[in-house]
């Protein structure tokens, strides 16, 4: 777009150009006028400002968290579990929070991603045009439902109805280590939080995979069908391989969203500060949820520790999301399948 005003004639050294007589051609320069330079400069400032803003977010959290990092050292902050900031020998760190954050995100991805990809395939390949529009609206609507509402729903409606299922898993699938339980309380578990967050990441994963699937080349689709493939085998042979990169990116974006999910998780879980692999029983945690649940407790060191946890979350989600958007963009431009 910037080259629309490009040179038609090389700029001459004569500054009196535009006012010349009708016989000589009008002087066209590649120089922008003053008002355009202001316009371009202003938009560029805002664009760079967004970049600076993201940098500042990280910087301010880091500065706020310095007292916590200094107290026991940054390595200890990452490897310790606990939030005891008031005593003479404070012990605090994000290890267990980080662990549970990842656990909840992975559960959410296991629940949400298959549903989201199935929905995307249905929208692209199976649904009639009218139903397609309705479904896209429903998915968009799901994306704007506030997370506190999902939290209330998960706590009041889903939890009593899913505890039986958790019990079933813990009894009959005991041989899988993380389905084992040490207590018989199934409320407030990472599993329930993961299921709710799984429903919440459906919109983002669906909308990205839908776009990617729709980009699968029409010619190859028709070729597969003309060779006698059923729709299912056509999807397996053409649509899924073509959209593989985009699917991986979408899953990572979903994971990033799930890790940053705050209020819905905070509503559902019962906080634990220990690391144990029992996802079905009472007790879970997540950095974001822990911050809102413990905000204002623990004195100034506690605040610094929470800011430090926020900084860790910021770095973690930023890395995941940058990697994800890189993969999605690559597969969108067709650079790799």
């Amino acid at each position, binding site marked *: 777009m910037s080259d629309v005003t490009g040179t038609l004639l090389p700029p001459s050294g004569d500054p009196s150009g535009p006012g010349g007589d009708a016989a000589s051609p009008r002087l066209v320069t590649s120089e922008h006028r003053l008002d355009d330079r202001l316009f371009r400069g202003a938009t560029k400032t805002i664009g760079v400002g*967004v970049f600076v803003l993201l940098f500042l977010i990280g910087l301010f959290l880091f500065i*706020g968290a310095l007292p916590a990092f200094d107290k026991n050292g940054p390595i200890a902050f990452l490897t310790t579990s606990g939030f005891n900031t008031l005593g003479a020998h404070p012990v605090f760190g994000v290890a267990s929070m980080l662990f549970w954050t990842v656990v909840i995100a992975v559960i959410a991805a296991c629940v949400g991603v298959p*549903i*989201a990809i199935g929905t995307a395939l*249905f929208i692209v390949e199976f649904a009639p045009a009218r139903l397609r529009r309705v479904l896209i609206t429903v998915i968009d609507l799901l994306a704007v439902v506030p997370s506190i509402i999902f939290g209330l729903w998960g706590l009041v409606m889903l939890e009593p109805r899913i505890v039986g299922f958790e019990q079933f898993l813990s009894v009959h699938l005991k041989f899988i280590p993380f389905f084992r339980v040490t207590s018989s309380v199934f409320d407030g578990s990472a599993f329930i939080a993961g299921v709710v967050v799984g429903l919440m990441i459906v919109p983002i994963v669906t909308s990205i995979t839908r776009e990617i699937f729709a980009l699968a080349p029409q010619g190859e689709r028709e070729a597969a069908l003309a060779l006698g493939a059923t729709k*299912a085998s056509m999807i397996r042979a053409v649509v899924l391989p073509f959209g593989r990169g985009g699917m991986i990116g979408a899953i990572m974006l979903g994971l990033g969203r799930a890790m940053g999910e705050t209020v819905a998780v905070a509503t559902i879980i019962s906080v634990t500060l220990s690391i144990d692999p029992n996802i079905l029983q009472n007790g879970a945690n997540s950095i974001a949820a822990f911050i809102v649940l413990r905000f204002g407790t623990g004195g100034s060191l506690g605040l610094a520790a929470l800011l430090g946890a926020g900084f860790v979350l910021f770095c973690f989600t930023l890395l995941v999301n940058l990697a994800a958007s890189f993969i999605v963009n690559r597969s969108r431009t067709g650079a790799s399948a």
Partner: protein
Amino acid sequence: MSTTTLERQSPPQAEPPAPRPLTRRRPRQFTPTDLVVLLGSALASISLVWVVFYQLTLLAGASGFVICTLATFLVVYYLANRSLFGNMAAINRVIAALVSSCAAVVVFGLALVVGFLATKGYHLIGWHFFTHDQSRVLQSSPASAGGISHAIIGTLEQVGIAVLIGAPAGIITAIFINEVGGRITALVRTVVTAMSALPTIVAGLFIYVLWVSDTHHGFSGFAGSLALAIMLLPNIHRTTEEVLKVVHGSLREASMALGAPHWRTVWSVVLPTARTGIVTAVLLGIARVVGETAPLIVTIFGATYMETNPLHTQEALPLFVWQSYRLPNAADIQRAFSAGLVLVGLVLILFTAARLIASIRPGFTNRMVERFKRTPKEASA
């Protein structure tokens, strides 16, 4: 050997005079047989799982029942189709059923969430609820005492200020990436995309450090607005950029060729063409952030009374829901559900408005005006 092959070929040779009825074969046709197989499989799986779940093993839990029924249905449906149409067709049918049930689960999930909230929260919705605050409500008061006017006003003010800050920034960023460009375009786009996935609590903490914990500001509605603006910016940017991309390049070139400076082209050609799209982007962005709770928890603190000055601590709808449901009183929890329903209603209104405006074709209103102007002239001529 040769005779046998001849004999085999003879029947079709004898038949041609009788013309085959020319029925059009549609591979996607859904015949009555298919319907019977579908309904039969559904019925079989539901009854089987019902017997196992509620009669034999007494496994409780509605979610387990739904999951098992779905799994059983897929197996039964596959077996039934395989015996009738063969393996390949059966796999095809099962994939179609699986994929459509995914879509059904999503629709069902949304309906459950909204329906649950509506049934839990409708009791208090009324004039009184919208016009009173919580300042005179005691712990022993019934749920119907007081209302959420303070939270509604707070939310409207905070979101309004956030839009004033975040929407121009988002739109200008989109203009920069799409219209101006330069070497840093890709970088800025990546950063904005990363910001759209920024955990909401991180934005809140940033504003807390930047604005609230600073000695002379403290918790305020304005701090909440700043946090919401950070969430709003990437949302509005993304949709606006999509809209600007659709504006036809020839329009820009025509404007440039007429000698318009670049800013004039953007202001008078690109933005008006994309007007409905930009309004949609802003409304959708508002719908996304209006229910954000986490950044408000660490920035606005909350209040039980009406506070119209956004520079003081204020209440907001999502924060009210969050604080009320955590109280031990049944009345408070009831208020949380009702306020949540109001919040969802607000989101739905914004979302519907965005959809309606998006469905207006660009230039539609202008054409209507033109026709309206022309009609009297033509009548007189």
